[in-house]
């Protein structure tokens, strides 16, 4: 269908207009990560031995970035769930547009929102002393990598949003998933201090591989925070890419199909 792409971009534009019409959205999607930056930088940071030249804040910021994009899942999911309950999804489905347009448009829109959020977080990090040394290109690449991670997660969000019965439940469910994933990882502290089974989990955790990949791109020496020697800790970029591809391979077709049949559940 020749309109498939332009239709998707119109939906993307709708997501972005939200930023203009309701600036609070941006404030609330950045306020929590900013609080995390302050909390870990100034409260816990002093007690965490990161072994990182340049201080804990260099170690922390990649974790914060990954955590921020990981919350895309919840954002996409609750947005979709809200459209479902308000009947907007029905309206879209009654329009002569490509059936894939809405879901692609939504995921792209949420990624566009992530660009803005990451810029704000980067600025906040810079203020508290974060200084990446790897050069502009690697920095840019790191942000693209983060956006790709957020994009793949928003496909899970579409699926969760379409299948949930209530927008409030979606928030809670997404939180229950993303919260342990971000904390049982190397995002805030080296995994060396964890009990053995937890270390194992943390090393394979996609959040950890993403954090490690980001640290690598920022030029950090202690990218994983452990010396475990497991495959993900040795090749975090490859492993992260594998995770993204797997997520997309499962959730893109699943979400598109669920969207097409979404009226079947009453």
């Amino acid at each position, binding site marked *: 269908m020749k309109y498939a792409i332009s239709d998707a971009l*119109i939906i993307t*534009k709708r997501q972005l207009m939200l930023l203009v019409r*309701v600036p609070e959205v941006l404030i609330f999607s950045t306020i929590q990560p900013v609080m995390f930056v302050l909390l870990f930088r100034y409260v816990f940071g002093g007690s965490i031995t990161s072994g990182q030249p340049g201080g804990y804040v260099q170690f922390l910021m990649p974790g914060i970035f990954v955590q921020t994009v990981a919350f895309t899942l919840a954002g996409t999911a609750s947005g979709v769930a809200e459209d479902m309950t308000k*009947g*907007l999804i*029905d309206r*879209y489905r*009654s329009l*002569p547009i490509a059936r894939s347009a809405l879901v692609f448009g939504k995921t792209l829109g949420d990624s566009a929102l992530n660009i803005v959020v990451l810029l704000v977080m980067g600025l906040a990090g810079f203020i508290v002393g974060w200084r990446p040394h790897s050069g502009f290109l690697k920095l840019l690449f790191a942000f693209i990598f983060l956006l790709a991670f957020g994009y793949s997660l928003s496909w899970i969000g579409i699926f969760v949003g379409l299948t949930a019965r209530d927008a409030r439940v979606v928030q809670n469910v997404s939180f229950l998933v993303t919260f342990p994933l971000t904390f049982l990882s190397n995002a805030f502290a080296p995994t060396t201090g964890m009990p053995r089974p937890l270390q194992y989990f943390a090393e394979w955790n996609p959040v950890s591989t993403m954090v490690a990949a980001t640290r690598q791109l920022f030029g950090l020496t202690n990218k994983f925070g452990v010396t475990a020697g497991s495959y993900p800790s040795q090749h975090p970029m490859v492993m992260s890419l594998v995770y993204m591809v797997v997520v997309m391979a499962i959730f893109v077709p699943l979400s598109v199909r669920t969207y097409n049949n979404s009226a*079947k559940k009453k």
Partner: protein
Amino acid sequence: MKSVLAEHLIKTYRKGHVRALDDLSLDVEEGTVLSVLGPNGAGKTTVVRILATLLAPDSGHATVGGINVIEHPEKVREIIGLSGQYAAVDETLTGWDNLVMFGRLYHLNQKQAVTRANELLERFSLTDSARRPIKTYSGGMRRRLDLAASLIVKPKILFLDEPTTGLDPRGRQEMWEVIEELVKGGVTLLLTTQYLEEADQLADDIVVIDRGKVIARGTSDALKRQVGGEQLEVVVDQHNIQATVEIVARVSGAKPSIDEGLRQISAPVSSGAAALIEVLRSMDSAGIHPLDIALKRPSLDDVFMSLTGHVAESGPEVEEPKKRGGRKS
């Protein structure tokens, strides 16, 4: 030509436990208005969703504008407009934003979409609030905007699912005016409602459905006739009741029923206004002054009650004086 045709639609939910549509058939002649009337849960929304290609029936056949909705849903979507029970617009965006966005999704270019949005806002008296987010709109304004969004490409066939549910009387009146105007413009309309008054006001034809089945069909007048003719009601002073009953009985030919508390005498009449005049003349020459006199036609309420049997416990002959006041003649 039939603009909308549904034949033997069956739709069940929860693995067959809930039968939303039970062999339902209906059709809408081009350029006319059909109202699907029924209580909550009768299957009204399910019919609309099937015809608007949002839902596939378990079995049965349906065409809209001559196009099979199951085989070519994408072609059907190009010629229909749908406005659902909830105002399906983005609340955080402004009215203008919404209409332009939907216009773009109907593949108008930016300039056309803007022109059309302005036209529709003007036509639905929303120009003043065009730049405000929808969440600041009243219920009636939201519905009008939702309707406007379904009219962007001037659909030939329009589905309105309970367009006035939840609106206050003023909002309802405004919505009716808008709908009447659309119908004058020649659109074919299928409208669902639980308000008998609404069906009476807007529809050429009415299909009454209950529990997924069509239980009656016809014009508003035909349905009313099906229930019975007109009823003459006279209210007089206490001491005149007996004399009046005699007059009414003679004109009507039937035994009048008497409500002592309201001092009201009523009886079915076949000759309508002529019977009314005759009763008045007789009362005048007998020196009886009526406190109130009226000729009541059965309302669609009566039709609906007698068809669905939802008032079966009280029975059709049992007088329900308290309900009288609420009926419209």
